[in-house]
């Protein structure tokens, strides 16, 4: 009996979607539009952040070895350096290699002519895992016995941290704003589409229907519209992303952008879309109906 009732409500909800065809179409397409606005911006942010992460990992610092250390002694320091938690890798560069690199850089200047590599020091090129902890890591590197001095561009570290923080803050603000506005648009649309049902609801009440009896088909209808909207939005979003990635890889300038593969993002995105769709669908229709139920 109970189950029977819910299958009736479900059937009524589905029927209603078709009998109010234009309205259903409008709700779904506006849900799709809003989800895509939100989704596109979220995907953009994720890509920007993954790119920042990548650039960050390319930043390096120089750890100069004590002048008293021999070549082999200096080389032996590598494992000590790598033992520091925030160090991603450490590459040894001998005095001679360093001079060669200097010469190739400033070669046409007379300044370095005749300079002997002995005036330079052995050094390590160190990459960090987290650039934000550069200052701390610098101190840890300097504490290693045998490291005379560490050259770190703390201002770059600072700059990166700032940029990352700015990008995160701005994009979180925008995503939240978009989410709120989209939810507003979507639930308003669902309200609009159910607005002309107040007569239908009044008639139902006059015939002796309880509030629950009237509400359930609307809830199912809202859930279905929200769900369908979410699915369509997801597929469209996938398509758009796919096409954009292809275009980016085609273009010579844009190729520099490294895109996050959709596969990594698909599941959470689908989850968010469906959740938003369902909440907005059911919530939107419930709020309208509540108003009309007091007949």
């Amino acid at each position, binding site marked *: 009996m109970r189950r029977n*009732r819910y299958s*009736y409500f479900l059937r009524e909800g589905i029927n209603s979607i078709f009998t109010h065809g234009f309205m259903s179409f409008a709700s779904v397409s506006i849900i799709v539009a809003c989800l895509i606005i939100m989704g596109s911006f979220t995907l953009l942010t994720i890509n920007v952040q993954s790119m920042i992460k990548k650039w960050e990992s390319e930043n390096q610092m120089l750890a100069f070895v004590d002048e008293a250390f021999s070549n082999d002694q200096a080389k032996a320091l590598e494992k000590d350096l790598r033992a520091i938690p925030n160090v991603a890798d450490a590459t040894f560069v001998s005095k001679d290699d360093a001079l060669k690199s200097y010469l190739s850089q400033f070669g046409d200047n007379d300044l370095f002519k005749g300079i002997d590599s002995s005036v330079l020091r052995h050094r390590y090129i160190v990459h960090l895992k987290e650039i934000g902890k550069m200052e701390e890591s610098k101190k840890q590197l300097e504490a290693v016995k045998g490291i005379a001095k560490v050259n770190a561009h703390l201002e770059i570290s600072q700059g990166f941290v700032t940029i990352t923080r700015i990008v995160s803050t701005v994009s979180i603000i925008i995503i939240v704003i978009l989410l709120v506005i989209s939810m507003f648009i979507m639930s308003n649309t669902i309200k609009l589409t159910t607005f002309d049902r107040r007569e239908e609801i009044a008639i139902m009440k*006059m015939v*002796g229907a*309880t*509030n629950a009896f009237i509400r359930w088909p609307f809830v199912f209808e809202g859930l279905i519209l929200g769900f369908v909207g979410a699915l369509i939005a997801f597929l469209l979003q996938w398509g758009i992303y796919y096409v954009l990635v292809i275009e980016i890889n085609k273009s010579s300038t844009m190729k520099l952008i490294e895109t996050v593969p959709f596969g990594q993002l698909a599941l959470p995105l689908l989850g968010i879309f469906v959740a938003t769709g369902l909440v907005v669908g059911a919530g939107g229709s419930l709020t309208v109906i509540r108003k009309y139920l007091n*007949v």
Partner: protein
Amino acid sequence: MVRMVNVCKAYENGTKALKGISAEINDGEFVFLVGPSGSGKSTIIKLLTGEIAPTLGSIVVNGYDLEMIKPAQMPFLRRTLGVVFQDFRLIDKKNVYDNVAFAMHAVGASSRDIKRRVPYVLELVGLDTKTRRKPNELSGGEQQRVAIARALVNNPQLIIADEPTGNLDPARSLEIMTLMERINKLGTTVLVVTHEKELVNRFSKRVIAIDNGKVISDGMDGYYNYET
């Protein structure tokens, strides 16, 4: 059973539609309610169904005191009623069958009962060939008959009909009224609002006449006693 004691109704815009109506309709009675246009007949019906609340006075319908009734109980009062509204109130988007079946679903009837009962009442009002039509594909009289079918379908304790034959030809009107009489004989209370003098006089039932929001006569003589 219906009991109204000194019922007054003023609409929001100040119109005093009813100015102290008292009347009692016992179970099993057949009553005509007559009166000129705008005299307050539909207002009485809207009060009985709980669609609007009285400004003053008490109303009891089928054991529910409308002053005390909780919103959650309203559907149960309405299930004891079968109402034909003056403006039909059909659901545009549902076909004839579903408009009637809906009233049975609403009271929790089983699918089997619905499948048996709905075609039966649609045949009673002569619409068995038009079950798949939407209301806007029906003539005025046909829409009215759907409304009548919906009022009958749940075998209510009390049938309230507001101008149920306003859009019907004399032959159909007589048929419908005869049907009401038959249902009444089986124990259902019937209250019919009508302007059709001929019908009222023909059936010789109790007639309550109102004018300008007041009862001006109430007699068993079956005479439509409002005259130019």
